[in-house]
């Protein structure tokens, strides 16, 4: 028995055949990897908007930001790409996932948006995208293909510039080079800013046991088991008349 011939589309998809039609020597591998990372970054960025589950949104955001780090590396910005991976993907996203875990209980994981809001956002977003694309493609100098001459690695000049010494650009001794300060002052400002922000964030997020009337209402609407409701009623009776029903913030213990 002769096996039926397999259609060529089943062996290799059409896009693979189309790529095979290109001579390998003609492929610009920088462009190839740019296309790969750009498609990943843009596709997952759109997926963040399309997803409704906040956990999936966080995952798509991780992938989009990681692909962007690849774009940075392709553009010759190694230090920025490494920072992107370490701070954004490694730090900020861990923070975000922690936020998701600390707040995402079943009713709040996916909060639906109304259809009218979606249509409105789509129209505004497409208009904004059109304007941005028009501006990006309208300058001939920006469309000139890359000359292909890669400069020396930028990590060392950037690191030196952050401590106030410029080792890039015009040769030392020329008048242009004499007045080129580094980024020491912005670096210090950002450092102090980061310290203050982290102290503030730790102060804001510290454990408190203060509840407003709304939180009490929401907690009550969940319908606890009868035994819990009994305990709550007993507790209210002990606190005194009106302390909960008066609507003000109620301290139920804790340092404040």
């Amino acid at each position, binding site marked *: 028995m002769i096996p039926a011939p397999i259609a060529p589309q089943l062996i290799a998809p059409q896009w693979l055949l189309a790529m095979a039609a290109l001579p390998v020597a003609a492929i610009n591998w920088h462009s190839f990897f740019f296309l790969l990372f750009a498609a990943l970054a843009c596709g997952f960025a759109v997926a963040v908007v399309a997803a409704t589950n906040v956990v999936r949104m966080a995952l798509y955001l991780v992938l989009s930001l990681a692909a962007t780090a690849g774009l940075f590396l392709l553009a010759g910005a190694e230090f920025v790409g490494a920072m992107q991976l370490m701070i954004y993907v490694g730090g900020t996203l861990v923070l975000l996932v922690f936020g998701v875990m600390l707040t995402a209980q079943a009713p709040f994981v996916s909060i639906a948006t109304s259809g009218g809001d979606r249509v*409105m956002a789509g129209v505004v977003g497409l208009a904004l995208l059109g304007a941005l694309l028009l501006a990006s493609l309208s300058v001939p100098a920006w469309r000139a293909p890359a000359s292909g001459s890669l400069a020396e690695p930028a990590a060392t000049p950037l690191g030196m510039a952050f401590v106030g010494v410029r080792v890039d650009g015009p040769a030392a001794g020329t008048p242009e080079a004499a007045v080129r300060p580094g980024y020491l002052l912005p670096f210090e400002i950002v450092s102090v800013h980061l310290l203050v922000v982290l102290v503030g964030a730790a102060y804001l997020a510290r454990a408190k046991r203060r509840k407003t009337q709304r939180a009490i209402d929401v907690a009550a609407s969940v319908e606890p088991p009868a035994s819990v409701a009994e305990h709550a009623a007993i507790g209210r009776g002990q606190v005194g008349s009106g302390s909960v029903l008066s609507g003000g913030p109620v301290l139920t213990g804790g340092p404040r």
Partner: protein
Amino acid sequence: MIGAFAASPLFGFLITEPVSVAHYLVVGAIMFTAGVACMATKRNALGVLMGIELVLNGANVNFVAFASPYLAGDGARSLGLDGQAIAVFVIVLAAAEAAVALAITLNFYNNHATVDVDRADDLKG
């Protein structure tokens, strides 16, 4: 859809020609727009935060593209080290902003038992 794109002359042009600054600007524009749409449509406070991250990242792509000496065409001047320094500062500030925004969100969740931004109307007059 992938097949039609791969067989098109546009794909052949994209994959054989060197990239330009405009390529990066298009990527930045798409990420920026996705971030703005994310901020506009999400009712979850963390979703809004993710939209902000996308917007900052799209701006960063533009800074890095303008800073790259490789992407600048013949005779064109690039931003040089300034663009990369700005990109690093933006990343650091985004981390700081995420920390504070997350602390505020956790506080809001502790007080209101929700992260729906439409419920944050206590200051409405």
